[in-house]
């Protein structure tokens, strides 16, 4: 994570410039546009949807038509409108989930890396324990303990992804701790927390940004997996995961049903991944992928 040896002119540029400036990358732009569309759906679902997403109607499992863009589901609800309204939940779950992971993971990583010693050992063993068994099992255990709900899924996503941020930040801290400017400011009597906030965190920021988008992508897939196991968000709220699961019951009667939620999940994960990769290429060109 050797951000420090970026070319000097890269170092000087602002984060914003590094993300958005320079030569346009068509794939990055395409994925940003898809994300933008989904974000608009999430922010203004009423504007984009054509029907009340939870309104039950007599037209069950209708194919796509002018009235129902993506057809209707088994309750006669408009699939398009449900997909649009579902976008918000996807962002809320993945976004807040990742936020929880960051709010816990970043301080843990900072403290572990900065303090070192037994504090580091204890915190890192905790991270190991989280990583030591498959995250989906852990997710199921948490949802079992708290009941299936939006909050549970956010918490689950939050907890299982703590190590991603904790380890990343800890590595940055370790790499930067011995850098000249840190040693210098320490010598000048700067306090620990000031050092963390002013120097270490900003330096780790690019890697964190990349991690946010990539983790959000995995969070969307985790939500879909939990929905498949019947541990998704409560009805009648539409999430893409629960819709995809429901659609699996009608492969013959309504083959189109599966497409809207499936493609939306696919595009969202794809765009988040691509966007994250693009960010990484711009912010952290030396870091190897994966």
């Amino acid at each position, binding site marked *: 994570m050797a951000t420090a040896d970026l070319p000097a002119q890269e170092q000087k540029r602002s984060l914003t410039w590094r993300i958005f400036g320079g030569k346009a990358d068509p794939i990055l732009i395409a994925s940003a546009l898809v994300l933008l569309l989904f974000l608009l759906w999430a922010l203004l679902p009423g504007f984009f949807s054509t029907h009340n997403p939870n309104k039950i109607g007599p037209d069950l499992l209708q194919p796509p038509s002018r009235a129902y863009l993506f057809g209707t589901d088994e309750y006669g609800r408009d699939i398009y409108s449900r997909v649009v309204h579902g976008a918000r939940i996807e962002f809320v779950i993945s976004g807040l989930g990742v936020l929880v992971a960051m709010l816990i993971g970043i301080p843990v990583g900072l403290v572990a890396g900065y303090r070192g010693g037994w504090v580091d050992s204890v915190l890192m*063993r*905790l991270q*190991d*324990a989280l*990583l*030591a*068994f*498959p*995250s*989906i*099992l852990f997710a*199921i*255990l*948490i949802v*079992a*303990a708290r*009941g299936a709900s939006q909050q549970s899924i956010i918490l689950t996503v939050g907890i299982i992804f703590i190590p991603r941020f904790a380890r990343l930040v800890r590595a940055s801290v370790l790499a930067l701790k011995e850098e000249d400017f840190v040693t210098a400011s320490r010598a000048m009597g700067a306090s620990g927390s000031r050092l963390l906030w002013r120097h270490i965190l900003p330096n780790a920021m690019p890697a964190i940004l990349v991690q946010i988008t990539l983790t959000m*992508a995995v969070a969307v*897939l985790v939500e*879909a*997996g939990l929905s*498949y*196991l019947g541990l998704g968000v409560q009805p009648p709220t539409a999430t893409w*995961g629960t819709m*995809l*699961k429901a659609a*699996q019951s009608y*492969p013959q009667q309504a083959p189109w049903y*599966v497409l809207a939620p*499936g493609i939306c*999940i*696919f*595009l969202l*994960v*794809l765009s988040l*991944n*691509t966007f994250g990769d693009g960010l990484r290429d711009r912010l952290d060109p030396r870091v*190897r*992928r*994966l």
Partner: protein
Amino acid sequence: MARFAASRILQAIPTVILVSMLVFGLMRMAPGDPATMQMGTEAANPANFAKLEALREEMGLTKPIPIQYLRWIEDLAGGDFGDSLRNKKPTVDLFLQKLPATLELLLGSMFFALALSIPLGVLSAVKRGTLVDRAAMGFVSAGLAIPGFWLGLTLILIFSVRLQWLPASGYVPFREDPAENIRRLILPAITLGTYLAAALMRFLRSDMIQVLSADYIRTARAKGLREKSVIFRHAMKNALIPVLTVAGLEIGALLGGAVIIEQVFGWSGVGWLTVQAIFDRDYPLVQTSVLFITVGLIVVNLLTDLAYGLLNPRMRVS
């Protein structure tokens, strides 16, 4: 080397203890109890309330949780993993009975992932920017973005229902019918292996690109070695070591995926066993399987690290 291994094993001990506490605590926090589950509808009959209490007592659910935990650890120390609350069989037996199916699924998907990602990853690195590369990268993006269960059900619809080439699901032990065993493995292994194949392919490609631009490769080229020989004899060897390491470390993620894929394909392995045990609140069975899975993953990771150290001596120093 031995010291490295020993220190890693020492480090693993607190991890395993933490996991055991985590699982024990989370299971006990979960509402719903195994006694009610076992009684079914009849648990609601007031005439059965006393029986329910007796059953809970018999299952050891009435003691305080820390006591229950210590009792469990005590039993573990004596080599007793406990019996399933549901069918009274030793949990170890239940777990080991399901293990071969899962191991086979993991190996199958690992094989698929490697068999697909190594040639394609190398090819797309060598032919960077060409159509082949783009197609491979398209597969990578798609493979990373598709929910596993959707992919699985789609493959079943195509290959089992429409084309009727492969059976839709179910596990047949290898020793019973090897050919049938392999036929049934194909779809689940592809489903589970796709994500890993995509991840490895991406990793291998960038790894390979980096290696190809390294000094010693340039030297080899300058010496007039044929391009094929440069790629296969020199570059690939160096690019593959980290890929195999990554593949080893991804076993955990693969096992996570197996939890869902086993269910899609009626592949009765430890993932399904554990999920079912969680739903049934079969505490001892959940504890045993999670413990075994955790220890298994730690061992695999350790072996991967050791192998990496052996293959790549520089690693040992740092």
